[in-house]
């Protein structure tokens, strides 16, 4: 009996031990990671591969989602000291910094197109192109041709975004693999400005010439948002215009030429203007209002960005946003005045400077500096052009968005009797400090919230017209086609300005185009590139920008008159020559000693 018990006890305990360890140990430790897809599944079918291309699209820069919007870096807008742009305007830009965030960084306007992020985008495109080619048997020929062109367009766009800020880049067209590649293949030096430019143009040419993509998608098309031939041609026209500009294509470029010609062409060539003109002309004549008409100016600028008007005839290339799930946060940072109907609604980041406001013409199309314009500095907001009233909120402006039950009169003046919540407070709260707010692009249906699904338009047809006018004026002079292009914008219904005065000199026309560009494209993340390529940042960004101070001569009871005094914003303004370009991050150079730094850093 005792013996039996012992044997049984051993048997039972042994069973437990055996139960624990009888299974194959390696199998037990071999768990499946269900969170990931393998190479095999990723490229197995068109629908699977599309998921990867979706990733490439999702990397499109979320420009309006950045609280330090690109126009913060310009003379058009004033924003407070928290921001990276504020440091940059102080003259602080540091190649050693690897923080590309909106707040207090020292990287300059590279935030959205920084080195590391750009090469992540490029690798994504390269990965797609390489793998779709490698697994071509899994896809239809049409799929391969079309999707690869989309990826090539995206790659060219990503290259262009950094090229326009930084100059010559390391050109990499396939996903690098450290297991198989030689050091020379892995450590790629920067190509010259010209080589990088040529690469982007040749890629776009290939996409355009393949003609596999749609010219344009209309609202409601399932593929709306994908790359188009229109986007490719417009991007080509812009890159050509950019490169032809004096900062890179002149005897005295923005920064001194280096032996590697990383930041300018080795040889200036005025013919580059003609190339730019030709491309933009081709757009206008083939698909624009002088051609098939798929692209044209949208007749109602005040409603251009509304969700209902996405993919209207003027939209060429945009980024998608969807209410709630993938909202556009543009409004949160500065959706008009900070307080509306006494309600706090946004951070008030978009505060036009007095300099931008002064750029708006009078209703009859004259500059306010023109003595015949009838402009009265003590009654400055009357009789201005329509775009002023469409874009800018000023003291005394009537403000009525769709969501507002009643209109509100916005006050920025310093009023001791009836203090307004929006009164400029210079450094205190979220209220802007210039005495103006921008209301361009704001979703009128909601207070700033995640309900804003408006797409952000990178490129619209008006820009193509302005690109053409500028290039043609520089290449040939102010011929009829230049006037036509600019006047098309000035006379657009809703803008309704008189046509340009005939007989302008080339230089006068240049000023007119630059003026038109600043107003028409204001707050569309365009101004900074113009400041750079026109080589005017050293003047415009070294200027003590101003706000408007409106006070009563009898502040205690407002019985006096209201006095409008443009006053210094007292913001730092220390633009140095090197800042025409952002630096290559020191970290990137540390990791690839073949990379050369930009001038001055």
């Amino acid at each position, binding site marked *: 009996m005792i013996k039996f018990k012992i044997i049984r006890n051993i048997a039972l305990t042994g069973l437990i031990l055996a139960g624990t360890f009888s299974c194959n140990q390696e199998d037990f430790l071999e768990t499946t990671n269900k969170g990931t897809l393998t190479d095999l599944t990723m490229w197995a079918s068109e629908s699977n591969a599309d998921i990867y291309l979706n990733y490439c699209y999702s990397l499109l820069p979320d420009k309006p989602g950045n609280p330090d919007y690109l126009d913060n870096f310009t003379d058009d807008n004033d924003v407070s000291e928290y921001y990276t742009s504020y440091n940059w305007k102080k003259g602080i830009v540091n190649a050693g910094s690897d923080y590309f965030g909106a707040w207090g960084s020292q990287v300059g306007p590279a935030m959205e197109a920084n080195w590391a992020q750009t090469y992540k985008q*490029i690798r994504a495109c390269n990965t797609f192109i390489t793998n779709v080619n490698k697994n071509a048997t899994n896809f239809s020929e049409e799929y391969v041709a079309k999707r690869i062109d989309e990826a090539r367009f995206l790659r060219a766009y990503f290259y262009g975004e950094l090229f326009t800020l930084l100059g010559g880049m390391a050109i990499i067209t396939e996903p690098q693999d450290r297991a198989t590649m030689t050091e020379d293949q892995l450590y*790629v030096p920067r190509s010259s400005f010209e080589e990088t430019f040529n690469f982007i143009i040749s890629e776009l040419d290939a996409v355009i010439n393949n003609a596999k993509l749609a010219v344009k998608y209309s609202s409601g098309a399932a593929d709306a948002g994908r790359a188009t031939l229109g986007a490719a041609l417009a991007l080509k026209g812009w890159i050509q215009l950019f490169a032809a500009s004096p900062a890179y294509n002149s005897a005295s470029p923005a920064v001194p030429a280096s032996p590697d010609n990383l930041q300018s062409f080795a040889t200036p060539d005025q013919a580059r203007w003609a190339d730019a003109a030709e491309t933009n002309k081709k757009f206008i004549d083939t698909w624009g209002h002088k051609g098939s008409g798929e692209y044209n100016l949208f007749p109602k600028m005040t409603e251009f960005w509304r969700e209902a008007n996405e993919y209207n005839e003027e939209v060429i290339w945009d980024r998608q946003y969807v209410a709630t799930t993938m909202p556009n946060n543009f409004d949160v940072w500065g959706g008009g005045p900070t307080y509306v109907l006494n309600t706090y609604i946004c951070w008030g980041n978009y505060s036009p400077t007095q300099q931008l406001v002064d750029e708006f013409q009078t209703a009859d199309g004259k500059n306010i500096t023109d003595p015949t314009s009838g402009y009265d500095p003590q009654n400055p907001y009357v009789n201005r052009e329509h775009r002023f009233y469409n874009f800018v909120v000023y003291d005394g402006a009537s403000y009525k968005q769709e969501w507002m039950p009643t209109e509100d009169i916005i006050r920025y003046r310093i009023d001791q009797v009836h203090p307004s919540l929006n009164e400029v407070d210079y450094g205190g709260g979220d209220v802007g400090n210039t005495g103006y707010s921008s209301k361009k692009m704001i979703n009128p249906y909601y207070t700033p919230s995640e309900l804003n699904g408006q797409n952000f338009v990178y490129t619209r047809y008006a820009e193509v017209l302005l690109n053409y006018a500028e290039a043609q004026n520089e290449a040939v002079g102010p011929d009829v086609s230049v006037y036509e292009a600019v006047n098309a914008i000035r006379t657009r219904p809703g803008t309704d300005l008189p046509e340009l005065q005939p007989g302008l000199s080339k230089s006068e026309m240049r000023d007119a185009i630059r003026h038109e560009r600043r107003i028409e494209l204001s707050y569309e993340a365009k101004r900074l590139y113009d400041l750079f390529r026109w080589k005017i940042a050293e003047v415009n960004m070294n200027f003590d920008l101003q706000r408007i101070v409106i*006070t009563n001569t009898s502040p205690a009871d407002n019985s006096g008159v209201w006095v409008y005094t443009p006053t210094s914003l007292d913001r730092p303004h220390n633009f140095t020559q090197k800042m025409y370009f952002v630096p290559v991050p020191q970290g990137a150079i540390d990791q690839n000693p073949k990379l050369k730094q930009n001038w001055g850093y």
Partner: protein
Amino acid sequence: MKKNLNRYGLKGPAGTIHKLFLFMKITGMILMFGFFDLPATPAYYLNDDEQQKLTISGKVTDSKTGEALPGVNIVVKDVTLGTNTDMDGKYSIAVPDRDAVLVFSFIGYTNLEMPVAGKTVIDVALVSQLQNLDEIVVTAYGTQKKNTLTGSVSMVKGNVISKIPVPNISNSIAGNVAGVTMRPNGGQPGYDNPEIFIRGIGTTGDNNSPLIIIDGFRRNNISQLDPSSIESISVLKDAAAVAPYGLGGANGVILITTKKGVTGAPTLTFNTYYGWQTPTYYPDLLNAKDYMKLKNEAYLNANPGSPDAELPFLPSMVNDYDNLHAQDPDRYPNSTARDLVNMVAPVQNYNMQITGGTEKMKYFAGIGYFKQEGLFDQVNYSRFNYNINLESKVTKTTTVSLSVISSMERRNDLDPSEDAVHMFRSAYKYLPIHNLYYTNGLWGQSSGNAPAAVLNAGGWDKRDLNTVLSSLSIEQQLSFVKGLSIKGAVSYDSNSGFQKGWHTPWYYWVQDLSTTPYSYDRRINPKEGGDAPAYTYLTQQNSRGQAITLQGYVNYQRTFGKHDITGLFVAEGRETQGSFINARRNNYVVSIDEINMGSSDKNDFDNGGSSEIGTQIGYVYRLGYVYNNKYMAEASGRYDGHYYFAPGLKWGYFPAFSLGWRLSEENFMKNITFINNLKIRGSWGKSGNLAGDPYQYLSGYNLVGSQYAFGSGTMVPIAYSPQEANPNITWEISTKTDVGFEATLWNSLLTVEADYFFEHRTGMLLPPAITVPQEYGLPLADENAGEMENNGIELTVGSRRELANGLKLGFIGNFSYAKNKMVQVYETSATYDNPNRRRTGRPYLTPFGYKSLGLFSTADDKNNDGVINSEDGYNITQFGELHPGDIRYADLRGQNGDLTPDRVIDQNDEVSIGYPIYPEMSYGFTPTAEWKGFDLSLFFQGSARASLRTFGFQTVCFRNDNSDTDYEYLNNHWTQDHQDAKYPRADLGPTANNGNDLETDFWMKNTNFLRLKTLTFGYTLPKSVLNSLKISNIRAYCSGQNLLTFSNLKYMDPETGAYDDVGTSYPLMKSFTFGLNVTF
């Protein structure tokens, strides 16, 4: 029937409870028999009528004092008979035969076995454990004798820990155990688990927490345990102690043992306390008048000479503000954000335990309830616990144990778009000149913050977590080899989480002053930054987790003359699984918080979920040899396999060796009578630490839903490669060396334990930045390249003395010091090449910044233009425009490693500016006194050599756009008349163009502190009173927590939770509690 009761040793008034436990016992037996066959004729059911009877009586006393000991358990060994001594220490028990053995046991005393040997009167003297050197210590996979232990293990009894009225013990280990430091995480109920470190921080990786083992199984459930259910806590520190945990042991191990049944008549214990908590520090924010004055001062600083009319607030109005406010508080508010907070929050705890049993069957059961209110009505934490432990000797050689530890927790918080912590930030941001509440009871907002709206909107967030930790073990003595036993143990732990959040739009009211009376319009508040939707939504998440661990033990323990040999082998397999599913719906028209009641538009739907599985196998051994209780040698280790790593790289071996020498056993020491025990010991070994995430050896594409859109907003998924795999990835290895000594002197008048340790950690994950250029475009998986050293000392000192007048004095103190150094760490050439900035060679998380030279004074502004620049002979470019009252920085270096200052303050001028935030030193001491029923215990805890960046709402003028300021700043800031100030001059914005906000030693403060963590004063009713009540013990006490703090920081808690924006975390609490312990 009576006989049966007697057999269980049950008698007296608690009969109904006995029945309950009889039921439970039977249930337990049934459960066990499901796993283990019932023995044919268990000893348990022997008919004792067949036995011959004999009655023994006697008296039990304390061996030292000779005092009678009441309540001592006496049982007959191997038979189920038992009794207790009475108030005079006397007992009487019937034994079956002359060869019976009596076992005397009493808490705090060593068990004593006494053969009857035909005697009828047996008087015994029990030895107090304080003098006992045969103390048993819980160690990895078993227990070891304290006196021959060669590893570094600190143990603290549960009754020490449970004295501290905190929700869970993680808040009370530091200071009670040498080598343990902690850093609190704020005081929000249910979210206040501190970070605990054993021997400091030894790794730069994320995983720097110790392993938690509860009752022999890996269970990260420290916060689910009822403190009063804990028997003891062991902290394993050196390699010898942690090696059996293989790649889980490098950060140290905390072993928690819960209470088991104690042989004897049932003892019912009831504990309760009720208390009131209040923040240790609460900010003292400016009132409306002082706010406006400071605003004007700042404006004048920025715009010198401005006329009164241009100032933000007319000085005449400000001066008259008290009067204006009294007349019309709606137009002239003076809000106090503190009004949002309940400054007194109750905490309550109830706990009942019953224990008892016989040699055959011991049981313990406990049930507890804890509730802690928060500083807002909606915020609280509650926990219901129960635990059962049954241990049965089913045969003479077989022991079966079953244990269930269960908890049900609920954490309530504010609206899912808000949380309690952020509310404290909102309070700082609430300007006192804005109406928090109008006189009509409606509420307003300030700069996008409407905290009153959040509190009144009706949104809520509820998180439930139900945990069951169950385990079963069967131990079998193998009689054919003496000293050999085997044990099988299994644990099945499961938890289920449920989370539900209900957001309703936050409304507030805008006041229109132009009407009479004033009129109020309701508005929706989107929260600063627009994070709170203007629609109602509901989120719900269900999660489940489970862990199964199987253990097989072979244990050998035998003494051959002077040779003690022990051997342990354990095979362990473990599998964990977890999954969750969540859902959300937006736009509720009807206000019913059920997922189906929301919008039926699919665009308002969202859901998600995932699952994971993890496995581990380990083989543990420990071989010990002790010669003559004098020389000890031990080898232990583990061969460990883990699913994290690539095939072929899943297994690691972690060995440890240790030696000990008890000098006090040597003949030459025998004459030194005051030394009771003196031991020196040393250990060396390796242990591992998991770092990073699983599957880093695999490349693949992550699939993520709804990341982009085409067409009319059709969301599409994306897939991307998060990183390039590192097929060779492995664990961190910690090589630990430890030497220590233990001494007991003058019969425990003084006990000392001291250790020196050195740890070398290798294989820490670092980004392999140098391998490929940035243009590679794909992050590489980390590589095991980091190296760090960590060393320090620990000291524990104890003393206990009893005076002739009956006063008992005790003292336990401990001290820990640990300092680490990064040997190999990722850093750029820019920092490495500059010795001031070099991270390598410095402690982990050392802060860097500019060296400050104090504030500029008006004397520095030589030309008196209000600006300090080259015209004043100051030729150093700092940041923006400098004024008297701004921070002056030291220009130390030039560009690119140039040693000469370059008159520009930039990154090259950075230096190390303080200690890391976690303390290098930590200490605690507990003086105790007992006299005639009164007991007093003071638990002090402190830490030193840790720094905190104090730049925050308390120390900075208008810290954030439109925020209020603290009186700490106002009373100590720079003005023309107060040049020798603590804080810079007033600016309109915190980051005004002056660089005062940068990382600098100016803001770094040492957080050295000593605090009276717990004070307890209790009174135990005299036995004479209790006897008449038939109650064995009643103790009433009052206790206070965090009552006193000695720190240089007068305006914030030195242990403040937030690392970044100090002062905006949920405050730590001080509390006053009253409690009662009753034992029947």
